[in-house]
């Protein structure tokens, strides 16, 4: 098969890989954001004892390479599920591992954003008789969202790039399908460059949506 024919033939395979990359990333972004907001609020405003397990989670995960987390989640959950008679699809292990990893980072994004809001904002909310939940919802979170957007976008692009680690547990995402194509057609240089550009396009798209969102929701704060 000549070079051009092989590229045309490889598009459908790459598309499957792209879909796995995008879907595992989206799941991880959604889960880690929900987890990160909850844990971040706890770390910012929880009492000292309550905070301990969340602090440990964040510090442990952030201190471990992503690949180790992927393998640990995969083998640990797989081992545990097998003992009760289930098999864990690599894809599920993959997005759970990505979520566990990114959740720690988003938690820190959220905690940092909340703690950077001046204490006077809480006082002002209290002074007009608001309860803490109302202060959180109407005063703190809207301001924290603006502040956490840049680091959160950073975390998202890390998730997308980190999803390539899932190749190592057999998830047929972009990198693994690329490697399969290289095994089939050779031309490693071309295919790695090609897949690199695809990652780049995804992340540039995320960044530009993010910049637009920053402008939109930053009114009054990013004056």
């Amino acid at each position, binding site marked *: 098969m000549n070079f051009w024919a092989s590229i045309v033939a490889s598009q459908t395979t790459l598309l499957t890989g792209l879909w796995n990359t995008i879907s595992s990333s989206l799941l991880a972004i959604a889960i880690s954001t929900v987890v990160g907001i909850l844990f971040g609020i706890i770390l910012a405003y929880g009492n000292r004892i309550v905070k301990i397990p969340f602090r440990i989670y964040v510090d442990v995960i952030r201190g471990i390479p992503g690949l180790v987390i992927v393998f640990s989640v995969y083998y640990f959950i797989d081992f545990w599920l097998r003992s009760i008679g289930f098999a864990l699809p690599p894809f599920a292990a993959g997005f759970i591992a990505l979520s566990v990893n990114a959740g720690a980072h988003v938690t820190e994004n959220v905690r940092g954003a909340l703690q950077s809001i001046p204490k006077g904002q809480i006082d002002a909310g209290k*002074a*007009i008789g608001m309860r803490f939940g109302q202060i959180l919802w109407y005063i703190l979170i809207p301001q924290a969202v603006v502040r956490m957007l840049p680091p959160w976008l950073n975390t998202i692009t890390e998730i997308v790039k980190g999803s390539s680690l899932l190749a190592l547990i057999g998830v047929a995402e972009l990198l693994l399908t690329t490697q399969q194509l290289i095994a089939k057609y050779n031309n490693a240089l071309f295919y790695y460059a090609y897949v690199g550009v695809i990652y780049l396009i995804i992340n540039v798209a995320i960044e530009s949506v993010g910049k637009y969102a920053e402008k939109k929701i930053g009114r009054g704060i990013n004056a």
Partner: protein
Amino acid sequence: MSQNLLEIRSLEKWFGKLQVFSDVDLDIRQGEVVSIIGSSGSGKTTLLRCINLLEPFQKGTIRLNGEEIGYKEVGARRVRLPESLIARQRIHTGMVFQQFNLFPHMTVLKNVTLGLTKVQKLSAADARAQAEKWINRVGLADKINAYPSQLSGGQQQRVAIARAIAMNPLVMLFDEATSALDPELVGEVLQVIKELAQDGNTMILVTHEMRFAYEISDKVIFMDKGKVAKVGTPKEIFEDRDLPRLQEFLSTFNVDLGGRRAEDRDH
């Protein structure tokens, strides 16, 4: 029922091992304007924050309109009320902060309506009408849709005053409301505070504007080293002959009590 709107008895406050103030007694009647003066670190701001229940205190009682606020006795133990109850008690006090503390992500209108809709549960239309009334009163009708970052410090503080007074509190608390302002912006804020005083609002001001305190107050409290060192009429305080600490404190301000110009600064 006493005739006092606010009654403070034997109040004592500690930050860890540091005593901020002790033995604070204070009676404030409906419509009275009370200024608290004293050097920094004397506990003035903390006292104000205790009245608004923003700070816990370790001893003593505060009664507002006959009701003890912040704490209750359970058997022999004194316990702080849950935050939800404290939030409800805070509705009766309005507070204006040194740093304004406006909500930066909200317009002027939204800053003022937030408490009206979420705490007082007014309808959007009623809240808006109430907010507009007070925003007009502080002279910012044309800034109603501006964000705080688009306003000068003096304008921001006037919005903060509107936000507090719109809640219709029993007592207004001013915590060094003009200390963070550029000198040329102080006058406009003092003018608004003065008008509120003339309307018969009960107010407590922590201030370094000595001449303003002299003119506007029914009663002045001099705090020194965590105690109420002297309470009296403005005349009794500013013409004091018995208390060297007070004379020393006042001498640092070079107060011109004969002055009538609103834009005068006393430090």
